[in-house]
């Protein structure tokens, strides 16, 4: 999966959780939880969404690696 695919997946998952968000306004190294005001449930749903759309297991221990867009790109890339 290249970066464009991953960004599209992230945008699609976030659209379900925070529909008002424009991903283009978020820097790659920003903490998504702060930038998008995601609470614990939102972030868990974000991880569930990535899991469903990519088929990746994403063990709980890896979840902190998904806090930023850059992290998601590295992890899923």
């Amino acid at each position, binding site marked *: 999966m290249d970066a464009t695919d991953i960004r599209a997946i992230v945008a699609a998952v976030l659209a379900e959780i925070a529909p008002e968000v424009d991903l283009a306004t978020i820097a790659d190294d920003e903490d998504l*939880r702060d930038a998008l005001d995601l609470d614990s*449930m939102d972030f868990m749903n974000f*991880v569930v969404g990535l899991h469903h759309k990519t088929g990746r297991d994403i063990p*709980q*221990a890896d979840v902190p690696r998904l806090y930023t867009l850059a992290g998601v790109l590295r992890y899923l890339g």
Partner: protein
Amino acid sequence: MADFTMPALGADMETGKLVQWLVRPGARVRRGDVVAVVETHKGAIDVEIFLDGVIEQLAPLGEDLPVGAVLARVRTAGETPAAAPVMGASRARVSPAARRRAGELDLDAAGLPGSGAEGAVTLADVERAAAARQAGAPAPARRGIDPAQMRQAIAAAMARSKREIPHYYLGSSVDMQAASRWLEAYNADRPPDQRLLPAVLLLKATATALRQVPQLNGWYEDGAFRAGPGIHPGWAIALRGGGLVAPAVHDAERKSLAQLMDTLRDLVQRARIGGLRSSEMTDPTITVTSLGERGAESVFGVIYPPQVAIVGFGRMVPRPCAVDGGVQVRPQLALSLAADHRVSDGHLGGQLLAAIDRALQDPETL
């Protein structure tokens, strides 16, 4: 004939706007069926009927109606239909085919207008009623929550609370080492959609503790405490864009942790897009608020009348703690209670906090 009236979907609701009927005259309804959508300042609520019977008349859509206004007239069991022609043996004439088809469709054939001889209800009449019911099914686009209205509603309820309820406050610190470790192990080998949030443990611990201190689970009404018919904590959900709702998690103490997680996920989703049920708005017997991993370290809530208590959990933080005469860094959680002095004292409130703490030290029993 019984009246189905506009329910009070919270202490602060005065009127609601009827925006959709999900049933047609002639439909057989059971207590708990969602029959209408009512728009309130907390968004569109799916209203459940509290009667068993057959719908006879419906109020028109689009009007703001006060709490208590008649929404529908319902013929309850044993009553004969008023509108349908009543023949000899006090029974509407219904063709056997119509009766059978109506049974399949869950319609009451006797309540339908009949087009056959002497007003008899025919198969065609039943099919027509079913088609009409079908046509009414697609939901209109739900309107989003108006933040200004939501703020007004919160202001009204909280002002009433602070005016009428003599609050007392208690706080204590809960060691979350056991609960965190248990949760970590539980989540480690599960796929993301089966993992639990710490919030679920907090909710279950509170519900379990309320079994031991039922005096804080219920409502203050007409100058006296009334115990809740079950343990139905309202779970406080912050809405994106501002505002807050706290719908009921029914019988929380009897649900497994996995069931509670599913329930919370579903409630959060429906709180945001609309579609909370009327029972979820009216049934909470206490409120639980958890600030989560990015919130403040502690919270002292304001009681939502007519409830008599609110339990608060802050953000878990690692702190140095005295353990067995030494010092260890362990995750700590600020637990708080605001309760109504007309109903209880700090002594009882302290028992609730102690019971919640005990439950969290034994996570495998939750």
